[in-house]
């Protein structure tokens, strides 16, 4: 087995990992990035639609274009594609990887975990019925169409109205697939309003809110699904069932952070992702994290921002220049908050929090802790994360708190 010594090892060559590696190299760290796929880019590579980079580059780019910009920033980074991370030593920053040239042990000063997220499979929803061909998680369908040039079916239904589901509905429609609708269990769409308009309304694709798939039919290939209306708690209502003949079901019911490679690092129970502080540092001081392995992000710009911060701080940690953090204060999801990253904040330092509201609000107030700082926000939608920046003074005032609850309330 070969051994390789570096300052920073970055795992995952998506937006988060590339931004981390570039930032680490920029401050002088010897940096290796390992990516399992044959190319860099992660999910960006398969997202050929525009909508990336408005914040970071002030331009509307496609996923591959955005990825190409990040690749161009990888000056001084050794990027190994076709290289998989196998295991990380829980006791020190040392990892084993494999590629077509064999196993490589990498000794590092710090590790940035940026392995992204996987899609939740249909089986996890325990939908009864058969298990035929024709059931695809959205990302798989997206790769089949956009990367392999293959058509998954002729008549499709999309389960889940998050941005990925909406974008796949349009993509399949444009390829000549009859998309009979997008089904959403909640009473409001999961994705951006912009995407509902541009992906469904513009093409006459129906959106069925408060509905779900309650049975799958077909033995060889999918022949159809049974839909039903759900009540406020998401429970299917007897008597509302109807059969919809389709040969393809696109399943887009959520992303699950990919963190199994670091089983020793604590998880955030609310997101299932790695628990990290606003330094993007986990409880294991040499392990940093960024991107969808913390929680699913909807904007790649945010992912890249976090990635860069994780990379810079990892490089400083590797060189022994990062002062030990004061005790981080856990942040907790309070009223009307459905997601919150990172998991804790470092008092006395600037902090960026991202949160997702549970219910839409036209004007809202975000409160960080009792009597803590507040921010106002407009047009709050569950699909869009709200960014909350706190100053060093604001976080310093929280140093003695056991935890800080974040709330989103209506503002009149």
């Amino acid at each position: 087995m070969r051994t390789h010594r570096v300052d920073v090892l970055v795992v995952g060559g998506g937006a988060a990992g590339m931004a981390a590696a570039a930032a680490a190299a920029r401050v002088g760290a010897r940096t290796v990035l390992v990516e399992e796929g044959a190319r860099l880019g992660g999910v960006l590579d398969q997202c050929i639609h525009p909508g990336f980079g408005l914040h970071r580059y002030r331009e509307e780019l496609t996923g591959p274009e955005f990825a190409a910009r990040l690749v161009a920033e990888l000056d001084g980074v050794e990027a190994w594609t076709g290289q998989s991370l196998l295991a990380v030593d829980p006791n020190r920053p040392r990892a084993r990887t494999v590629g077509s040239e064999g196993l490589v042990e990498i000794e590092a000063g710090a590790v940035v975990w940026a392995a992204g997220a996987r899609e939740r499979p249909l089986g996890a929803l325990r939908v009864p019925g058969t298990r035929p061909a024709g059931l695809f998680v959205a990302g798989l369908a997206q790769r089949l169409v956009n990367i392999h040039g293959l058509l998954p079916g002729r008549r499709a239904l999309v389960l889940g109205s998050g941005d990925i589901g909406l974008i796949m509905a349009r993509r399949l429609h444009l390829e000549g697939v009859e998309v009979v609708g997008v089904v959403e269990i909640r009473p409001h769409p999961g994705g951006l309003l912009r995407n509902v308009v541009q992906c469904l309304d513009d093409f006459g694709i129906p959106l069925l809110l408060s509905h779900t798939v309650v049975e799958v039919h077909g033995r060889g290939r999918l022949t159809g699904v049974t839909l039903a209306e759900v009540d406020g708690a998401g429970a299917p209502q007897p008597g509302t069932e109807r059969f919809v003949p389709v040969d393809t079901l696109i399943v887009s019911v959520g992303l699950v952070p990919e963190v199994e490679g670091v089983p020793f690092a604590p998880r955030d129970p609310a997101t299932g992702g790695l628990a990290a502080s606003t330094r993007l540092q986990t409880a294991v001081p040499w392990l940093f994290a960024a991107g969808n392995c913390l929680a699913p992000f909807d904007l790649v710009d945010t992912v890249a921002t976090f990635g860069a911060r994780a990379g810079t701080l990892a490089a400083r940690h590797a060189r022994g220049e990062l002062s030990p953090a004061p005790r981080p204060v856990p942040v907790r999801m309070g009223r009307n908050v459905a997601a919150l990253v990172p998991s804790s904040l470092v008092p006395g330092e600037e902090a960026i929090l991202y949160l997702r509201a549970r219910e839409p609000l036209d004007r809202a107030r975000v409160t960080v802790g009792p009597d803590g700082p507040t921010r106002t926000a407009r047009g709050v939608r569950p699909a869009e994360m709200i960014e909350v920046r706190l100053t060093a003074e604001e976080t310093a005032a929280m140093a003695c708190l056991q935890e800080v609850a974040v709330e989103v309330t209506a503002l009149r």
Partner: protein
Amino acid sequence: MRTAVIGAGVVGALLARELCRYEGEVLLFERELDVGWGVTKANSAIVHAGFHERPGTASARFCVEGNALFPEVCGELAVPFQRIGAYVLALADGERAALEGLRARGEELGVPGLELVAGDEVRRRLPDVNPAVVAALWAPSVGITEPWALALAAVENACANGASLHVGEEVTGICLRAGRVRGVRTDRAAYDVDAVVNAAGLDADRVAALAGVPVPGLVPRRGEYLLLVDVPPSLRSAVLFPVPTPHSKGVLVVPTVDGGLLLGPTAADLAPEERDATETTTDGLAQALAGARRLVPGLPLGKVVKAFAGLRPEPRDGEFWLGETNVRGFYQAAGMRSPGLTAAPAIARWLAGGIAADLGLAPRASFRPLRPAPPRVAELPPEEWDALIARDPCYGRIVCRCNRVTEGEVVAAIRRGARTVDGVKFRTRAGFGRCQGGTCTDRILALLAREANAAPDEISLRGPGSALVVGRVR
């Protein structure tokens, strides 16, 4: 002399292998595109101890004998077998007597190591178990295996010893002359044979009818399951049973050999014609969940990745149909209710011996019992993996991250007979993990197409009518 075995489930596969210990030719017919896709692919995968069976029955005899054979057979065939033991949990004082009954029955059958354990001790050994447990029966000889892997390995070894496998070929007729078997007809060809074995699983009654052999009939009894992956080791230390009912062994919590956990099975009798009704149901899944939670209240349900169901071929007379029949040369290894998997190695050995004696077949001196397993990198020490990559770099390219399966292993599976995505999955475990193929299915599809020199729309999930894609984009 030629013997045809109908059905390449675990029973037909092991039987074909045992028949290879004797002279004569063995033909194995399977109508599916691959081995082990019937009852063998959806069950609890437990190698039972035998204490659930009534003394004096064939189920009891072959279960106990089969259990004893498992280490040898799985060792020779390089198939996973883990003797992790089982607890039958009594959750109320009223259930203690049942444990005593099971122990007495097991001891009568010669089941080794049975032991009654007090509630406190059970809670100490199994921290996640329902705290209401009052006592348990510990059965150390219970094991877990990978049933389809056993069938696949047995077929490979049979073929290495001269048997011929005919997949995608359905037996449609049995030719009799003067009251004895002379041949079989399939949807492709006709073959002269001297003996036929009915190992046709859920369709054994139909195969029996082809020979005019009366049988009591089969009831498909559905068992539904939930599969969890990546569960903590504390939940995987042993198989957990409730106290059985007269109808079934109940809903269990069963570790799988690859780090998962099965919750189930339920038991619902279907109409005789519903032999492909392997769909899951709302009620069934709710029952599986409730039953499992009764044993382990705090199951990590976020780890559920799949629901599935299997059908038990329940013989109406409650007993395996084994051995010779009123038609000379027509034998059965059918009505394989649970514990059919456990019993299979012992039934195969016994029946092959009987057929050999009837046909006057001498032992085959050249029989080789060992099957070289294809490499599985997830189980190799680093130096061996490195050496493998040095020989073939494809073994360094991960295709399935969840279960650490490489391109080299996928290609090897295809070269060993996988023609479908399921064929690859069942051989390599690629796609069996936490993402359920969301990440690797397109890669496997591409490899299948490349190796078969076929168009992607010719590649199916599991045979005709299950294509994964319908063509190219415009």
